[in-house]
């Protein structure tokens, strides 16, 4: 479970994040939407202890993220290309992440075979370093790397951006499968309201750093979101 208490983040006087209380129970599939600058990436970065909130704290599985690193073995993320190691091939990158997360080569290989469809033959055996892959293919590699080592919390920032339609559909399937596991909490942000209502059971709308809507996904959610953003 993830719990956020009184988080604010202020840069030179302007507050970019201000959340009083937010709880994400274990097994949830949690969607985050908001316009640019709403604080989505800031929130995810704070969850991963990559930025220090000005006030407040975040608990991941009962551990305060900025005090201990115990949460790291059960949490994984793909935020942006700074989560990729450009000079490795995709295989090397997966094995490296695997080793960091206590998985041997066979474990990683077994996991990778599940994603052959998703890779669409463009990731493995490419004779290219990650830095030379296209943006979309880099993203595919990063997303799959975030699934290595049976993480219990998976954070994906804008996973649908840059992906082709086929891959988007496959990714939705993957996220839904993950969400079906009661032990896995998935956090996804997106600009695409359709996608996010399809894969998330709960959707939070951020606006200028504050939670303005907190919805349990239903038939009407998409309409409600569209109405909100069409103001």
């Amino acid at each position, binding site marked *: 479970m993830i719990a956020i208490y009184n988080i604010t983040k202020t840069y030179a006087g302007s507050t970019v994040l201000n959340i009083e209380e937010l709880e994400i129970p274990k097994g949830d599939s949690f969607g985050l939407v908001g316009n640019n600058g709403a604080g989505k990436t800031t929130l995810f*970065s704070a969850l*991963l*202890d*990559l*930025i*220090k909130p000005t006030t407040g704290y975040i608990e991941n599985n009962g551990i305060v993220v900025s005090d201990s*690193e115990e949460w*790291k*073995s059960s*949490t*994984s*993320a793909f*935020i*942006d290309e*700074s*989560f*990729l*190691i*450009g*000079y*490795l*091939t995709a*295989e*090397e990158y997966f*094995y*490296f*992440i695997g*080793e*960091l*997360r206590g998985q041997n080569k066979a474990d990683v290989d077994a996991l990778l075979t599940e994603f052959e469809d998703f890779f669409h033959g463009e990731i493995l055996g490419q*004779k*290219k*370093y990650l*830095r*030379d892959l296209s943006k979309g293919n880099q993203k595919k590699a990063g997303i799959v790397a975030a699934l290595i080592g049976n993480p219990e919390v998976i954070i994906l920032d804008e996973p649908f951006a840059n992906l082709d339609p086929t891959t988007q559909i496959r990714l939705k399937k993957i996220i839904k499968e993950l969400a079906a596991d009661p032990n896995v909490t998935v956090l996804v942000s997106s600009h695409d309201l359709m996608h996010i209502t399809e894969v998330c059971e709960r959707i939070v709308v951020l606006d200028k750093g504050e939670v303005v809507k907190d919805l349990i996904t239903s038939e009407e959610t998409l309409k409600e979101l569209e109405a909100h953003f069409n103001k």
Partner: protein
Amino acid sequence: MFKHFISLQWKSFWRSASLSSGLWMKIFMGFWAVWFVLMMMGSSFIAYKYIEKELFLNPLEVVNKFLIYWFVLDLVFRYALQKMPVINIKPLLILPFNKNKIVSFAIGKTALSFFNIIHGFFFIPFSMLLVASGDAPLLNVLLWNIGLIALIYGNNFLNILVNNKGYLVYIVSGIIIILGGLHYFGYFDITQYTAPFFQGLYDSKFLVLLPVLIMIALFVITFRSFRKDLYLDSGLASKSKNVKTENLEWLDRFGKTAVFLKNDIKLIKRNKRARSTVIVSILFLFYGLLFFTGAVKVYDGPVWRIFAGIFVSGGFLMSFGQFVPSWDSSYYPLMMSQNIRYREYLSSKWWLMVIATLASTILASGYLYYGLEVYLAVLVGAIYNMGVNSHVVLWAGAYVKTPIDLTSNKKAFGDKQAFNMKTLMLSLPKLALPMVLYAIGHYAYSPYAGYVLVGVAGIAGFAFRNIVFNKIEQIYRTEKYKTIWAYKQKK
């Protein structure tokens, strides 16, 4: 239209994260620039006076004889160090700029480079001395200078050309090596042909046209090649070649550290910038020649032996170690969100440095030619490097928050942000301490006592490994958010 370019450049310079980082760095940059200028001017005076008063030769003739080497060295330095004129060209392509304008600005920008101006600080005082001596007519000296300026700018354009066209590197360096080799072995002395040419610049009124024409030709060729490649899929494209996945399983014997060690080896093998540390360490292998052959008089003191010993064995250690953890800057958020044991991460870098120091020490066994005592200096230097410097360098590196662009080789030497007070203070024990220790032993008892003192200090350094590693871990932890932020700032 040039106004736009210049304001873009101006902003990109002053708003870069590295420059706004601190006053100290600016002072340091200024200090080095002034230092080089003074060195050039000083050597100009000294060279003139020395040739005239000590060698009883005509300074102009002697300088003309060596000018060819001057220009070759200039080209080599430029190739290694000069930044290429890449203004952010891509976003400009579709704007209503004339392409010729973009190219001429990009190339023209290099004309103001430090690499061109620095020559002036040698040749202008030298020319003034020539004219002041009364034997040299002003006009001839001027013509000579114009010829040299043309050749310097010729080098400037040639360098841009060579940087853009990979194969030219091999051609140009091939020519230089062959001519140098022929000269060294006494078959063919190029200076016999070039000296009269440079002399001719001074003597004749028309020979100056030749270098000017060469310069213009090089400019036109560079311009055309630049202009032609101004497409996303040619000159501006990033090159990629077929690569193989490597497992490096033999490294698994290093246990947990192997995870990082494998990565670090790939880092060095596959990135231009990281590879240059290996080249530096090879250059430093030869650095000792200056000391042990007595080539440079100032370095003859016995204490300098230790200085040389430290550098000969520690080139890689210093050039690689000072940028830990910046080598991993481009994916630092990934590292920080994984469950990484800092200790294993650090010891991987430490092992790399130790292995490289050992390898350098073995390669340096050639110094046995100059006597056992000389090689002993390298040996104790290596012990000190492994025991003390490897830790100090990692410690100092923890304060350096320069993001490294792995794929680019420019600025590889003396990265300006690497200087701050803390790293400066920490560089003292790297060099000064062993020299002091040796001096105590040498002057109090014997050279061997000096070696023993330095060696013992090195071995004692291993005992502090845990303390230093803990300290570095602590720095990594407390500075984590700042470091992540700093690495996000692209130069």
